[in-house]
């Protein structure tokens, strides 16, 4: 559940110019049979009708640029693990489904939200460099584009530690519960 974290995510782009890429398309349920987060990358997008073709046409891509509501449907965190396992470090979209959005943060897949027209323009980018800490990105060396990460969850996407963060809250939670 802890991938390698990156302050700078740089790589070539896999454009998927469609909305509503659901987690069944990202990783079909019949692969959800492990007790760890491994082995998902090789099956990424197997549930997507043109998934194999997309991956073959963009070998080594590290950043997905796609439409609204990416990661909708099933809560399976395997979707984030499959992206990581295949070398994807960031997804740029106008919006994310809630559960995937949190899963991305918790696993070091940077979820970048930008307006639809900006995302449309980025679809044709070759290479994107994302300064995760600085919350800006550059496409093919153009002027930086600013985006905003969740101020709390940013630390998890950069350095992991979600469970450690919550663990430190236990005394406060117990005190709250006792006073409930």
């Amino acid at each position, binding site marked *: *559940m802890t991938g390698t974290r990156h302050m700078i995510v740089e790589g070539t782009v896999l454009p998927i110019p469609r909305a509503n890429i659901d987690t069944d398309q990202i990783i079909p349920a019949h692969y959800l049979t492990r007790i760890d987060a491994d082995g998902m990358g090789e099956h990424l997008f197997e549930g997507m009708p043109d998934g194999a073709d997309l991956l073959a046409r963009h070998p080594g891509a590290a950043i997905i640029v796609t439409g609204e509501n990416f990661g909708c449907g099933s809560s399976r965190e395997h979707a984030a693990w499959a992206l990581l396992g295949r070398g994807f470090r960031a997804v740029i979209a106008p919006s994310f*489904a809630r559960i995937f959005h949190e899963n991305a943060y918790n696993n070091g897949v940077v979820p970048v939200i930008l307006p639809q027209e900006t995302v449309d323009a980025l679809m044709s980018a070759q290479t994107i460099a994302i300064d995760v800490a600085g919350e800006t990105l550059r496409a093919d060396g153009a002027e930086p584009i600013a985006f905003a990460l969740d101020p709390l969850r940013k630390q998890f996407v950069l350095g992991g530690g979600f469970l450690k963060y919550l*663990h430190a809250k236990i005394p406060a939670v117990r005190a709250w519960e006792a006073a409930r």
Partner: protein
Amino acid sequence: MKRSLFDKIWDAHVVDELPGGNALVFMDLVVAHEITTPPGAIAIEKEFDDELYEPDRIVAMIDHVAPAKDAATALQAQTVRTWAKRQGIRFHDIGNNGICHVLVPERGYVTPGMSVCCGDSHTCTLGALGAFALGIGTTAQAGAMLAGCLILQRPKVMRIEITGELPADATAKDLTLSVIATIGFRGGTGYVLEYTGSAVRALNMEQRMTLCNMAIEAGATTGIIAADATTAAYLAATPAAPAGWTALQADDDAEYAATVTIDGSAIRPVVSWGTNPGENAPVDGAVPADAPAESLAYMDLRPGQALRSIAIDQAFIGSCTNSRIGDLRAAAAVLRGQQVSVPTIITPGSQAVRRQAEREGLHDIFQDAGALWTHSSCGPCLGMSMGVLAAGTRCVSSSNRNFPGRMGDGGRVHLAAPAVVAASAILGRIASPSEITSREVVLA
């Protein structure tokens, strides 16, 4: 400030406000199944001395692949089994199990006003009991088991009022599919859907669960329905028969970020034609002229095509949406004395539902009709174990998702209510239950 039902439950569970508009939100119950729980349980074992916040606040079960289909799924089940035993967690093993969203309410584990989470998107089902119930990922579930809390952004609240009365042939499934079509497949994103109105009040608890079950299919955080006498009677009849809960209500003039009103009397039996649940139309209607080409290409349909002309290869009645006793009775009413013409799988939502159905003789009706009557599991809904579709084949299903590949790579899914699935199974094409009734008249 006047508050919605959801606001009141949220406010009662916020332990602390966190940076960036986040909140630390206490979870009264964590539901844990064998597919999404093991990595989190193992992480807590390795990194935090196996120490859970409160094992009594967890209930676990084997539900997705029950019993195990291979060595890998056996290890998933065994991991949850040994963990639950070691931790003293309430555990429902095969034989005594059910789909989490069917089993948890039927045992009386959830009461109005509670907060509940599970590593399963359809946890919103439990909002039917007036609880705040939401699906989350494996890591977030681990956090809730470790520290008793989730980190959440406070969702907005959309009041969805269903006025009037549903027609006799329209079901909660038709209603929930119609809500998604109305607000849009991602129209609920960032919202809790607070269902109200006379047509909602008239639903029994199982039907309310069907309605709330598909809130996630509109992108919503969850759905919720205020508890009332129907809720109280349901809970009193559960094995746990929980007492001491309070039925919270929205304030009369509560403020909502959005309000939608739907005429319940206009709800028709519907079936999906596309690749998300919002892409649906009346069973007696046609594929819309403006249907997205991409959806139609996957589904191999054309604009204007009559839905009742679409031949099917399989039928499935089950899933956390429609596998409760009322759903099985509705299917049996159509299948009684008939024969299915395509492979038909009927999977009760829990072993308790299965036993009740058998007490009523429903299993005989199904099997006399040529359907396969199975034990409880998530079954064909997610293409993970039994009943997987072959590429290019078409299934009418009482489940909740018609995404590409959902029930098997290349398989096509049409979502509908159990009675529509049953009628379709008989006629081998998408069909209305009224066609079966009228056929009986003709035969007589």
